[in-house]
């Protein structure tokens, strides 16, 4: 399954990069007389309500999805690793303060806080990335904090401390590297989650704004044409589901590889 997942992710990345060379159609180009036309040999996924080629737009949407996923995961993981590591390593009031902030953020279910933040900041791709990153770091911080609590008691960490190594060096060179395998798994699964969240926000009209092609925005546009042109809904949806499935397969596979006990349990 992990290989299937890796295959899907690599294919998506390649298609996102070479998209403009795979299809002769411009994602923004309109053929109004053919609006809402179904899939044909020339337009593989058909055309949307403005006569734009859906295949070209799905390929362009892959760029947005992967970009959002990458930025959100990078920013969240960096903040989460930093705060989780100092909370776990220093304990005491530092840990208390960071943990209370995490408790408050975790008191909001999933996307709700992202919806709230985008509602006040205004709908845009940048604000979606900001909102998802502000929420996403908590998961990494909680994971890293737990790992660091264990790691700080390990002999090589205590040895480094006894040898007089600076705290920043102990954290960066000895403690944080022990958390990276778990963070990698979380980041892989987090890519899928971020892609799904961006699509959900765009679907609700709170994310990427038209005419920029995003899978969620395309699904939103398809809602008005469920009866007469279901292909507007079907193809962007397949793209989201397959890419998220790819990241989930890959994340599950990585977790099994890094912790064989989970594959026994699952």
């Amino acid at each position, binding site marked *: 399954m992990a290989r299937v997942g890796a295959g899907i992710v690599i294919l998506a990345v390649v298609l996102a990069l070479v998209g403009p060379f795979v299809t002769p159609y411009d994602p923004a180009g309109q053929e109004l007389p053919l609006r809402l036309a179904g899939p044909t040999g020339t337009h593989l996924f058909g055309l949307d309500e403005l006569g734009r080629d859906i295949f070209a737009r799905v390929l362009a949407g892959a760029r947005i999805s992967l970009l959002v996923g990458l930025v959100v995961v990078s920013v969240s993981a960096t903040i989460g690793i930093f705060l989780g590591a100092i909370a776990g390593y220093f304990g005491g009031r530092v840990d208390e303060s960071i943990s209370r902030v995490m408790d408050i953020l975790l008191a909001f279910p999933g996307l709700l806080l992202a919806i709230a933040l985008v509602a*006040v900041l205004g709908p845009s791709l940048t604000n979606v990335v900001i909102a998802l990153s502000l929420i996403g770091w908590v998961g990494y911080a909680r994971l890293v904090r737990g790992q660091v609590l264990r790691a700080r008691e390990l002999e090589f960490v205590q040895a480094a401390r006894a040898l007089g190594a600076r705290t920043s060096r102990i954290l960066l060179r000895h403690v944080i590297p022990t958390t990276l395998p778990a963070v990698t798994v979380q980041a892989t699964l987090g890519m899928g989650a971020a892609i799904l969240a961006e699509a959900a926000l765009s679907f609700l009209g709170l994310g990427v704004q038209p005419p920029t092609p995003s899978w969620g925005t395309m699904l939103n546009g398809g809602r008005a044409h469920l009866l007469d042109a279901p292909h507007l809904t079907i193809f962007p949806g397949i793209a989201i589901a397959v890419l998220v499935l790819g990241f989930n397969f890959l994340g599950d596979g990585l977790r099994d590889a890094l912790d064989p006990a989970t594959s026994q349990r699952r």
Partner: protein
Amino acid sequence: MLRYFARRLLLTVPVLLGVATLVFSLIHLIPGDPAQSILGETASPQEVADLRQRLGLDRPLVEQYGLFLRGLVRGDLGRSLRTSQPVTAMIVERMPATMELAAAAMVFAIATALPLGIAAAVWRGTAVDHSAMTLALMGISIPNFWLGPLLAIVFAVELGWLPVSGRGTWAHLVLPAISLGAALAAILARMTRATLLEELREQYVQAARARGTSAVRAIIRHAFRNSLIPVVTLVGLQFGAVLTGAVITETIFAWPGIGRLLIQSIGFRDYPLVQGCILLIAITYVGVNLLTDLVYSVLDPRIRYN
């Protein structure tokens, strides 16, 4: 047990205060002047000043915060900017619809996930297991904002079996409940399989089998009952995901609940109503999590002593 309950309740107070503070700050995160932003560029300075006064934005921040908390304790969340109705009344009116949808989604999820998880664990490593788990992974990956329209295309448009939107009869509930419950069903099925597999390895199950208990009885009466504890906990913890999912599902199926109200109020920049909806969903989520913790501590006394 009472001491544990009291401690757990006390720990909830700062979280609720934090949630209220965050929701209060939302309106202050609006770039520029919130009143100007709500009314738009064409509004006159007088209109902006009136709205600032109406929202209490002309008072010092600390006073605004105090008034917000005082209103919250009294159940007064202000008035909608669009309809001038009390926010609390508008939310209370929509609450039953959201709860009905969330309950139906959870019933669907549990009814689907348990048989699927049990079958996967009992026939571990077979085609049944692989099919069930692939289905579960698909359930997690397929977004409800795609599954919903897809179900509507097949069962409402093509087959004409069920209504495409609205609320009224049980038939209206079927598609939204499936759309909302599918992801939870997938997560629960995976969890049921995992915990049941662990229980099946335990000696008491093997001892029951050695005493001549049938395989079905050993699985259902012994192993499955014990594997239910983490599953019940997961159901509680996933309630938040169901509430957030309801925002999307209600929008797709025009279901008149809080989720739809939230999205509509965002569209109208009706921020008091946005704050009210967010606050209510978050408080419900905290409450359900608290309840789950308490139920868990009753089911598994070890939790209370740790």
